[in-house]
Every structure is written in C-alpha cells, then in structure tokens.
C-alpha cells in the first residue's frame, strides 16, 4: 500500500458498522482510514476527491463471484473480474472454486492470489472446495486451503448430495474456523428443470424446478449445522420457504447466515416469458415467483438474509446463444448490483442504511473478512456512489468479459464513480460514460 494521503470531501458518509450517516470528510493515509470527521483541514498539496451529492461507503464486499481463472479465461480472468468488481464499487470479492482445475489445493489458491496481486484492483479472497475435485465424495484439505489463503469452503455450482459428507464437512471445517457455503438443490427434484416451476414454466413449455428442491436441502443443512455446531452459509437463497427456514434457525441461535442475489431480489420467473426465452434470465437457482421475491426482500430487510452477493457468472455467447434448455446457467452482476438493489430503496423495501450494510459489513462479517467499515484504522477500501446517476446498461461496455446481463438496455439509477482499495484509486468513472 502506498503512503499517499487522500481526502474525500463533501460526501454523505454511510457506514452502518460505526453508525455514521452524514456529511463527513474521510481521510485515507498509508492504506488505512485515518480520519472520518465533520471538518478536517486539508493541507495544501494533498489530493482531494469531491464527493458532494454522493455517498461515501465502505468498499462493497461480494461473497460469491465466478472469476473463471484458471481454465476458462475466454469467459473471464481474475483481472477482468477484478476490474468489473471495482467498476461496480466492490473492493473485495470471494472467488468460487469451480475453475479448471478446481480450487481444492494450495497451488490453485496461490495462482488466483498471484493473479489478483498482479492486477492490483479488488481484493480477491479464494473459496476452496468442500470436496476433493468437487466430486462430492471425500473432504478436501481444509487446513492446506486455509493456509494458502482460502476464506470459506464451497462446492458451488453443485449441491453436496451426500448428507454424511456434508455433516463431516461442517464438523471438520470447525478446526479451521471456515464457513461452509452451500449451493442448495436436490438434483432428483430438479430433474431436467430449467426454470422455476409454476404457471410461467407451464405456459412456456419449459421443465420446472420446484422451490422445494432448494428448501429440502436448506432444511437438511440447518439440521446438520445444529448437529455439528458448524458454520453454515446459504448461498443465493431464492425461495420463501428457505427464508422461513433460515429465520427459524437464527432464532434458535444456530450459526447460520445467508446471502441473496440482486436478481432474486428484483426479477421473477415471469421475466423469462416477457423476454421471450432470453437466456440472460437463466440461472441457478432460477428466478422465482413474485411471492418468493417478496419473501426474499423481507428476509433481507429483517436481517434473516445477511447480505447481497452477486453470483457473478460470466459466460460467452457459445454457452448462451442457444435454446433456453441448452444454455448455461448464470449472469454477470458486479457492474449492475448497486443500481439494481438501489431500486429496492426507492420502492420502500429496504432502508439506505440496510442496503449499504448488506453490501458491506454484513458480508464481511459472514466470512470474517477485514473491511466493510470506514472505522478509523480499517483498510482504506472505499466506494463513492452516485445514487442519482441514470445510465443505460450497455453490456458492450462492461469491464467483465461477460455480456450475459438481464439488464441489457435497461435504464438504471445509481452508479459507482470512484473506488479505492488500500487507499489507492483503482476506478474512476469516465465523465463521458453514463
């Protein structure tokens, strides 16, 4: 980290972790937050960023991204993914292990970290595999993964089908204080389903995926968390039943946390029909019913769901320009997440403070990551967000290699204008861009 001092002046500082909400000057020095004060005298030759009319928040933290490196660099690299992250205001992202080879050993973890260091953009925290080879058969080496830099464990992209293996994973991970983050689906119930089961799937003639396929696994893993005392994190929670299950688990004091994606908070299965089978609306879990979306929003508002995570999943046209049932699951999300979720505030579903919290400190806490706050002494990871900036979403201008966005051509409100990581300005929005 460099020793430059930067003043961010005139912005509205929203830092839920310290309870700050008001116009403040933020002083960054030696890669740390040096000061957050109502008035702070800036020495003559010190650099300043004018943040008037904008929000100054802790850098956003995303617990769930797919950076595709190693192995699928044509879809994304650690560098392009990190560039997309900082463009969206994210200063830290957790990279899922379903790369090729998968991240079940220190050498893959180290490669990801080396690429991230070379890029010098967002902080990248690798997530290691729950099972060796992502095969769901035996435990991966959690000690080695943790020592190499992994912050959590996941077989994301697949469920852990064996209840016995899941039990041992939650138990064994306790030795290393690693959260186990789970992609919940009962593959038998999913069958050949490609979208949410319901009236829209019926109309479109597409095979349905019932919400029960997620809920039976969430309920199973909550039972196993209770049995083992393990630390369970439910990834991309999508149904009303899952919200109820997690709410109940938390009420009972279990060590369970959960995330929801911007798309599961704002889009429904009817959008698949509206878009006429556009594969940018195909992801796993699928977009659910309006009632599920309402429940997920309520869960996020009341803290049942801790944080927002994008499940950023870049694909190329080769995987997406196909029949709906043949297309790959997943959409990109890093560069649209803030604007998409800010709409929840306008709609009255979420307070501004809770929105910022869900993007920052709540995510950091779920995985025990540094950052997520502008408290004095914290890493100088800061995002400056313009909540009134209206822009047309043009995937052709994404920093990500992925173009698979359901918000293509949508008019979005809210955009990151500056991102600082460790006190260094790593992203500034072009004036001509919006």
């Amino acid at each position: 980290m460099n020793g430059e001092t930067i003043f961010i002046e005139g912005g509205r500082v929203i830092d839920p972790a310290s309870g700050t909400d008001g116009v403040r000057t933020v002083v960054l020095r030696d890669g740390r937050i040096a000061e957050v004060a109502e008035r702070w005298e800036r020495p003559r030759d010190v650099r300043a960023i004018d943040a008037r009319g904008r929000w100054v928040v802790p850098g956003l933290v995303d617990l769930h991204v797919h950076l595709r490196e190693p192995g699928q660099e044509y879809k994304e690299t650690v560098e392009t993914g990190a560039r997309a992250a900082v463009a969206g205001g994210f200063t830290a992202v957790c990279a899922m292990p379903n790369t090729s080879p998968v991240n079940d050993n220190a050498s893959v973890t180290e490669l990801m970290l080396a690429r991230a260091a070379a890029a010098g953009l967002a902080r990248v925290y690798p997530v290691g595999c729950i099972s060796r080879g992502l095969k769901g058969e035996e435990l991966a080496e959690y000690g080695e993964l943790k020592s190499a830099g992994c912050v959590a464990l996941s077989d994301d992209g697949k469920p852990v089908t064996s209840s016995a293996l899941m039990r041992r994973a939650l138990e064994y991970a306790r030795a290393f204080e690693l959260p186990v983050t789970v992609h919940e689906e009962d593959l038998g119930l999913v069958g050949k389903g490609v979208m949410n089961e319901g009236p829209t799937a019926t109309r479109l003639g597409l095979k349905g995926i019932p919400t029960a396929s997620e809920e039976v696994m969430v309920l199973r893993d909550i039972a196993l968390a209770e049995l083992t005392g393990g630390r369970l994190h439910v990834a991309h929670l999508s149904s009303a039943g899952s919200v109820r299950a997690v709410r109940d688990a938390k009420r009972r004091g279990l060590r369970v946390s959960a995330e929801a994606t911007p798309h599961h908070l704002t889009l429904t299965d009817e959008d698949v029909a509206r878009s006429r089978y556009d594969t940018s609306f195909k992801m796993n879990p699928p977009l659910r019913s309006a009632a599920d979306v309402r429940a997920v929003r309520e869960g996020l508002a009341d803290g049942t769901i801790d944080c927002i995570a994008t499940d950023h999943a870049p694909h190329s046209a080769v995987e997406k320009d196909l029949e709906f049932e043949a297309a790959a699951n997943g959409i990109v999300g890093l560069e649209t997440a803030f604007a998409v979720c800010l709409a929840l505030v306008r709609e009255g579903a979420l307070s501004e403070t809770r929105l910022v919290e869900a993007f920052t400190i709540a995510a950091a806490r779920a995985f025990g990551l540094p950052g997520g706050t502008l408290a004095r002494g914290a890493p100088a990871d800061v995002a400056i967000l313009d909540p009134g900036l209206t822009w047309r979403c043009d995937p052709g201008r994404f920093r990500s290699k992925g173009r698979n966005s359901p918000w293509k051509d949508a008019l979005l409100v809210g955009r990151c204008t500056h991102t600082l990581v460790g006190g260094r300005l790593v992203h500034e929005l072009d004036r001509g861009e919006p």
Partner: protein
Amino acid sequence: MIGRHRHLIGLEPLSREEIVGVLQLAISMKEVLRRPIKKVPTLRGKAVVNLFFEASTRTRTSFETAAKILSADALNWTSASSSVTKGETLVDTARNIEAMHPDVLVIRHPAGGAPQLVADHVSCAVVSAGDGAHEHPSQGLLDLYTLAEHFSGVRGKAVGEKGAAPNFGSIAGKTIAIVGDVSHSRVARSDLHGFTKLGARVRVCGPPTMIPQGMETLGATVHYQLREAVEGADAVVMLRIQHERIGDPLIPGTREYSKFWGLNEKKAAEWLTPGCVILHPGPVNRGVELAPEVADGARSVILDQVENGVAIRMAILYLLAGGAQGAHTSAAEGAARS
C-alpha cells in the same frame, strides 16, 4: 403477416380476430384442396424450408403438401439432434438456411422456445411446427377449424356448397375436455389458448403427475377423474401418451393409465353426450388412450383433423410468405379463383 405478427410461434400471442382471420382463409384453402387438380400458382417462386429436429412425418408432410398445392418450393432439412449433441448450434443452422433465402422457415424442435430463438436471428418468417412442450399452433388452429365444422353442422357437406362454411362463432360457450399428459403436451397448450380465445370452456384431465401448475391461470378447470371431465362436454381431445413417460415416473404403466384415463366404447356410451366428438392429434396409441373402436367410431373426427391440417397450413404459409397483399378475404378469393 398474421394480423400484427410476422411469425407464428404460438397461439398465445394472437388475438381472437387474428386467429379467426387464419381460420376464415382456410375455408378457401380447403376448397382448393378438394378440387380435382390441387394446384394454384399463388406462392409460385416462394421457398418454404421445413427444418425438423424431431421426426414427425405427419406434420412435415402436411406442411409440405400445403406448400406444394400453393406452388411454393418446399425443401426439407432434417436434423436428428439439437445443439447440445451436434457441433453446430441452432443459430448457426438457422443462419445457414437463411443464406438460401427462404420466405418461410417451418421449424419443429424438441426445445421449448427454439422457434423464437430462430426468429430472433433470421429475417424470413418463422412458423413453429411444434417446440418441446410449448406450443403447436397449426395443430391448435386445425382443431379449432374441425370443432367449428362440427358445431356449425357443416361436417360432410361439400365445400363451396351454400351454407357449408363453418361458423367460428359456434365454438363460444362450448365445453371441451383435454385429456392426457398435459404437462408434456404442446398440443394441449395451443388448444387451450385457441379454445379459450374463441370463448369455449376448457377442462383438462389426467393423472395429477401429468397436470402442470397454473392451468387455472390459463383459464382451464382441472379434473383428475375422467368421468367428471368428459360428462356434458361437447368435444374431447385425447392426447397421446408417450411411452418414455412411463417410469419417468409419472405413471406406473399403460395398463393402469388406460383403465382410468383411457376412453373405450363403454365409457363413451355411458358418459358422453350424443353429440360429443373425439379429437386426437395422432398418432393414436390404440388401446392406451383410445380403444380402436372409439378411434375409428362415429364420434371420431381424427381424419377431418388431418384434412383440415393441410388447409390450415396453406393459410399460414400464404399469410406469412408475403403473398398476402390486402385483406384476407380478397387474398382467399385470389387463391380460390386461380
């Protein structure tokens, strides 16, 4: 154009008027079909490509016959597999075919939404000949035509004879039962949209494992007992049970299915009203959903469906090949005169 539409992807997006427009034109087409010399020059110089990713001799032959009667050049492009297993994607295939400048592309595909994907990537008109469990619009239209002939009492009359034209308003207020594997049936969906848009009441019936969610929101009532569904109905559409569904596991076997949801002579005699007719999209699994005596009996209008299918497909190709300039009626007269 069919009303506002360049393509025919399904009946769901069509209005009642747009549907009736195609049906009206099919009256003239059926007259052409019944002439001793079945050939009119209406679509001379136009090219129709039949792109079939699923074997379906019946539907393909019907479109091909329709194209030939209208003097269009018909070309068949058959492909056994879809993108997943083949190196070439559907979009690539569509672009390749487009380079041959067809006027209409007729596509049959196992994936719901495939005709829409093709329509998004080519400039010619696209007609769905059935996509997955989504829609089979020409089947829905021919079923409407067949029902209207029956309800307006013109079945068996010579076409062109005075008072022999079906009245499509006759479908309104009628009760039609659709029985079978509704969940996997594109015919059921197109029928449901078509029947409800023309004012009929629709009942769907089958084992609960074969009735998908949301039938009520599409305007149908759901029944699990065959008797309840067919009693008092003015027509019954029996769907084909596909053998691969057995052990899916949607039903335990054909014997039990046939016992509870199949229609035989005894049930037909006891439960159906005298005027109730039976439709089937074909090919019939004799002895499973329909007993042979019923499939070949007096209530069966299955062969009318086949004949009307050609007339309906002539009307569709005519409207979408760009032959239509001006109102449907004058276009129909043009076809009938020539």
